[in-house]
């Protein structure tokens, strides 16, 4: 019996050794979402052919990347590189999961400064920006001759469109979504978190119940009370109404361009209307980019792969987008659906609407990445929904929401 057990263990040890040697690969592991995976796969194949290092691209849902990173990286099973959004920084950096990046000035200058800002958290840069995004005012030029310049004009125009029967609705917005409400809020002088001189968000200065924020919600309450804003409008309904010509104006981002174009409806992208005193609207600015795991054991290689391969201006990859084969630099291809954060790639972009989105986002504010933001979304969105459903006045809704957020931040 004892002998058998000994032999058993010996064989187990041998098997174990051989299996673990398979696991101990030195491939560069990249976690990417479905739109970037084909690009990195192509690029990785070239990298392996040239330098003999495999690039193992693992495709995950965009949001899953952050969640999986939190469990996998500390256990040593994580990737070397992830793609993600800049507003993940708060959560990831608080937990020490990201390696700060040090890039040379000359190289940094090739990126949109706002994107570099967005990927800077507490003074350190944590990502190589790939794309930028901000919402703009999208309208149907057949229904709207001259785009409105203030939100009061938006309301008057909506009334007119409905009264004339030009369309079922004038301006519509999606329910319960504070992200798309923020541009209206800032046009009226409202804000979410105050900022210090360096541009860092201050968690103690909450602006959800500021005068401007309430004024913006009061404007929206007027839209609801006058029957101009239906309830039950989610993202798909909003787009459905616009794309069938039943709504004339909305706020949406570059990610929606593809479906609007497919619908064949005439559209134009414009600057988001200003507030009553002419205050420019400031939508949220977002950036997506590559980040290096603090648990990577080949950070130098990962950084070199990003700066010399992903952000290369010479290397060309061929990827199928839709039904077309496209050959271009990785940054150019990744900048197909959203404006590239890499200026040389942005310059080459032939997208007719990106410049308009850039104009709408000229004064955009980076979406706060501070961890306190997690306490904000739900209460903030609920407040707008309560007004949309006629259950609370603008002032009540935002005052209560601000109280909720303050307690959540302090007691959560």
């Amino acid at each position, binding site marked *: *019996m004892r002998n*058998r057990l000994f032999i058993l263990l010996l064989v*187990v040890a041998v*098997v*174990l050794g051989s299996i*673990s040697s398979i*696991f101990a690969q*030195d491939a560069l592991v990249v976690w990417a979402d479905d739109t970037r995976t084909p690009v990195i796969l192509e690029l990785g194949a070239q990298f392996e052919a*040239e*330098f*003999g*290092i495999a690039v193992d691209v693992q495709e995950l849902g965009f949001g899953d990347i952050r969640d999986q990173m*939190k469990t996998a990286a*500390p*256990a040593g*099973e994580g990737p070397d590189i992830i793609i993600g959004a800049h507003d993940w920084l*708060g*959560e990831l*950096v*608080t*937990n*020490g999961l*990201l*390696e700060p*990046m040090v890039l040379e000035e000359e190289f940094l200058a090739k990126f949109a400064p706002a994107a570099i800002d967005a990927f800077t*958290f*507490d*003074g350190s840069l944590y990502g190589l920006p790939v794309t930028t995004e901000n919402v703009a005012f999208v309208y149907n030029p057949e229904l709207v001759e001259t785009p409105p310049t203030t939100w009061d004009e938006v309301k008057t125009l909506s009334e007119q469109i409905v009264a004339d029967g030009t369309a079922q609705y004038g301006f519509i917005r999606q329910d*319960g979504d504070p992200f798309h409400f923020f541009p209206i809020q800032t046009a009226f002088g409202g804000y979410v978190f105050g900022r210090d001189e360096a541009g860092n968000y201050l968690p103690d200065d909450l602006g959800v119940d500021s005068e401007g924020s309430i004024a913006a919600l009061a404007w929206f309450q007027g839209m609801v009370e006058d029957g101009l804003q*239906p*309830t*039950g409008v*989610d993202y*798909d309904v909003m787009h459905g*109404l616009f794309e069938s010509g039943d709504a004339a104006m909305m706020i949406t981002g570059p990610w929606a361009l593809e479906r609007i174009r497919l619908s064949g409806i005439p559209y134009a992208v414009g600057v988001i209307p200003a507030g009553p005193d002419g205050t420019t609207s400031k939508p949220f600015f977002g950036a997506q980019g590559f980040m290096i795991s*603090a648990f990577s054991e*080949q950070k*130098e*290689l990962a*950084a070199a792969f990003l*700066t010399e391969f992903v952000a290369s201006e010479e290397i060309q990859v061929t990827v199928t987008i839709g039904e077309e084969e496209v050959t271009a630099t990785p940054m150019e291809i990744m900048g197909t659906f959203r404006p590239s954060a890499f200026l040389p790639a942005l310059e080459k972009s032939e997208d007719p609407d990106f410049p308009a989105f850039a104009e709408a986002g000229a004064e955009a504010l980076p979406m706060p990445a501070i*961890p*306190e933001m*997690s*306490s904000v979304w739900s*209460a903030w969105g*609920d407040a707008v*929904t*309560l007004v949309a*459903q006629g*259950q*609370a006045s603008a002032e009540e809704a935002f005052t*209560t929401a601000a*109280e*909720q957020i303050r*307690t*959540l931040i*302090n*007691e*959560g």
Partner: protein
Amino acid sequence: MSAATTDAPRGAPSGALSSGTIGVLLRYGGLFIVDAFALLLIYMLAADGVWELAVFIAIVTIIVNIINLREDLKPLRWISPALALMALFVIYPIIYTVYVAFTNYGDGNFYPKGSLVNQLLEMQFVPDDGVEYDYTAYRNEAGEYALWLTDADGKHFFITVGNAMTPATLPENGELPESYEGYTLLPNSERFRALQDLENIAFGEGENLIGIRSGNAVASKDRYAHDAAADTLTDLQSGVVYTGDDSIGFFVDKTGYEAALAADTAADIQPFLLANERFSRGAGYRILVGLNNFERFFTSPALNGPLLRIFLWTVTFALLSVITTFSVGLLIALLLQANTPGKRFFRTLLIVPYAIPALISVSVWKGMLNDNFGVVSNFLESILNTQIPFFSDPVWAKVGILLINLWLGYPYFMLVCSGALAAIPSDMYEAAKVDGANTWQQFQSLTLPMLLVAVGPLLIASFTYNFNNFVLIEAYNEGGPPIFGTPTPAGHTDILISYAFRLAFGTGRGADYGLASAITIVIFAMVVVVTLFQFRFTGSWEETSKNV
């Protein structure tokens, strides 16, 4: 061979000896594979520092081995795989959840203390007088690396492992030499592969070590020194000594904080936490916090404000879901039990909602019930001449969610009831008819009690399932419409688990797993109480089953 002979069935023909041998071989083979995988798993987990799970798997594996190697434990053999899997996938998560509920585990206090210290000890810094060099890698035939360094002034140096840096001169052609002191310039094609090695090599000797950081060669030093006995970390860059404060789970500059407290009794501790570019918000670790998470949940109005109404709705929702799905399922089963023409066809058709993934069904219903744009809402509006606000009205939202759950749940009870109905002996009905019972009396006194014997436990299972039916609520309307004026955001259709989810991940400064686990345990306790209550008051099947 003794094992083989005892394995053979008693009185078996001589051929059974070989089949017994095969059995033993299979058993050892199976055990071998299981052990191999377990060892591999333990090895990998231990390497990653996940000791708790490694030990747990080791214990489970040993128990499985004992069960399968000892003859006197033979009866347990066949259930040992199930036991092992249950231990791993049910018992361990429960133990872990209970453990987490007593810790401050969450964003900001993410790692066990030891793991955090190890991470900090790996950090390096470049002293103020440190020089950055551009580098080019060389390698000799033994595979040892060396670096050609150029500083900002254009001076050149050569450095190998274990030897001090020496000044070097660039050849007259201005290009780096192909070979130098036995080392050869690395070809471009090997540059990246070399990076994997270079990152972990310290060049030079003694105190003056040079390493590759962020694309440059720099003389970097260890950032922290750890004194395990005093539980302090000294920041060698600034000289500040940080002490582990096990009451908050952070390394704190005690001296600085006390000085600040002396000046201002309300001084914030945040500026005195050990922080660096990797842990910019302070290096926090997991600590045991006792009952703190439970205390917070029960005493803070911010957390438990709308709790009572949510609890009541949760119970109502679960009860009504069970009652509606069971009634409709039973009704259809009864209708199909009679010799309806096309009964198979209808039954197949009626199972369809069960076959479609719930998430898809919910999304479809979500669209159809939409206040202004849904097919069903518009249809109802055209008949009733008034809009049914399935999403914005608290009562209608609840009706909507019960309707959807009915759609999702009735096929299950239809199937179960059909089976159970078929099992009721038909002579009992004949006897009832002889006694003069009408159809309703038959159903009430015969069908229903007999059915409950079989279906009763499933009703309770269905109740507990719906009590925690997070997916349905999240997919339908995320608990909306919002309740106005609650201390924390909550919705009219929020059930405990969806409310708890938002509390745990949408509060404070990020995810709070400790609080989430504590709330889970509280919900678990509630489910247990409610279930026991039901078992006691619906004990009919137990009595009947005694007679079987």
